[in-house]
């Protein structure tokens, strides 16, 4: 068997679990499938943000499915913050996934699952499509530096069509970084999407937690180019939205519970009793609806 644990060596199986954890609040399970009937030696290397690391090997038998808790396989790391796990082998017959579970929640071992990521898919721009931060949900960004050098990361947040925040930091080779979106961009409330750019290849995943801290997760998406969203302007930015269903003037607006109410007014000079409601948080990017509301008010 070739020595497989050298970072950067391109091997037939070179996979990454971006954020595995075991502590008092969360634990993780790693699941590896051998799918072509050969025996495979796996080498798994776990690395925390502070550089603490542990390495284990495991013989996977033909067609075996290996379930293992992170607290067992990486017991040497002890409880603490999460870590990135790189799994290498000399076969192309491996598939894998991992589960992060909330232990402390009232619902029990609330699970979130994601598939392992090919190291070869590491890229210089990663997209995190949906990162809510509000009264109901919190979200987190995980990035792992798969390059050989220190990565200079630029994390950009986009909200409602414009670039709304930017954070830079450095990340050592082979190490992960994780933070709540609300910590990275404390001035942004509501949902954002984010792009993390680096001068080294990176991989990552996104978490969403509900108010019970129950997790869901998805892998970040490699991105070829940065979004064309406008930068903040010292004089403000105008963005065009879906047109109103009504052609009106002289009508007041109010915002209530993330909805914009446009009430009554004049439609070509005639007093109207219509109410239009605009919901910018709709996935479609905004919808107009119309209802007729009793008495005429302008």
């Amino acid at each position, binding site marked *: 068997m070739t020595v497989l644990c050298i970072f950067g060596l391109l091997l037939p199986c070179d996979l990454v679990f971006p954020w595995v954890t075991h502590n008092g609040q969360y634990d993780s399970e790693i699941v590896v499938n051998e799918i072509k009937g050969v025996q495979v030696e796996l080498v798994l290397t776990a690395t925390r943000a502070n550089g603490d690391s542990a390495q284990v090997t495991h013989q996977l038998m033909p067609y075996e499915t290996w379930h293992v808790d992170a607290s067992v396989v990486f017991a040497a790391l002890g409880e603490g913050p999460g870590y990135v796990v790189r799994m290498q082998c000399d076969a192309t017959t491996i598939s894998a996934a991992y589960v992060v579970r909330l232990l402390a929640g009232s619902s029990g071992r609330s699970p979130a699952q994601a598939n392992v990521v090919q190291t070869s898919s590491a890229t210089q721009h990663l997209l995190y499509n949906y990162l809510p931060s509000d009264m109901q949900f919190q979200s987190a960004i995980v990035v792992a530096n798969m390059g050989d050098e220190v990565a200079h990361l630029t994390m950009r947040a986009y909200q409602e069509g414009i670039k709304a925040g930017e954070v830079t930091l450095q990340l050592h080779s082979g190490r992960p970084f994780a933070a709540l979106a609300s910590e990275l961009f404390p001035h942004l409330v509501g949902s954002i999407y984010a792009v993390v750019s680096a001068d080294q290849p990176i991989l990552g995943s996104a978490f969403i937690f509900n108010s019970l801290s129950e997790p869901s997760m998805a892998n970040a998406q490699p991105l070829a180019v940065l979004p064309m969203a406008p930068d903040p302007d010292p004089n403000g930015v105008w963005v065009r939205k879906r047109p109103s269903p009504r052609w009106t003037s*002289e009508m007041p607006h109010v915002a209530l519970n993330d909805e914009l109410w446009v009430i009554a007014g004049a439609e070509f000079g005639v007093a109207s009793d219509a109410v239009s409601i605009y919901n910018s948080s709709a996935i479609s990017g905004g919808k107009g609806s119309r209802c007729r509301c009793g008495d005429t*008010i302008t």
Partner: protein
Amino acid sequence: MTTVAAGRVHAMGGYLTFGRAERDLYVFDGANWVRLTDIPTSRAAAVAVGLGDVFYLTGGVAGGRVSGLHQRYNALSDTWETMTPMPTPREHLAGAAMGGFIYIIGGRADFSGGSSMAVLEAYDPQLDVWTSLPSMPTPRSGLAAAAWKGRLYVFGGELPDTYDDVEAYDPATQQWSILQPMPTALHGIGAATMGRGIYIVAGGVSVGSFRPTDQTHVFFPPN
């Protein structure tokens, strides 16, 4: 006029036909518009600004005259109360609540070309006192105003022209700044802050006419 008080949308007054101001007040209860106690005086082209469980109905045309009438409605008790009048009577004005104060901006004394005002006055609800503040750079009426992060943003308007101007007032410095103009000059508009943006839906495109647009734009103020 429309505003939010006690977490509900209230709509009131206005012209049913030109020159005939109404007194009706309604609240949307989640399913229907429910009529409440009428405005004490018929009212149109005024501004309503919500502040917690009350709203203030200020200026406009009241009883057939341009007025500084300033009334408070308590949404919990369904009662009206007349407060200290606004120093500068005006109609087609705009306003917003910010930092516990009510800011009233612009408007006009009549429909003549030179009547548009740049006046900014602030009302202290605790003391029932008005204060004059630095005027905005561009006098106008039929404008819109909204607050965001401690600044008052003023949009568009008319008389003598139709305006695309966006100006912001910072109470901390008592300074006005001129910002990115609107994509289209509009009057007869509203503005509402939602998330990080200030939304402006539709509006009139030429002075004094009811020629409207369906455009919707959102303005993201500078951080």
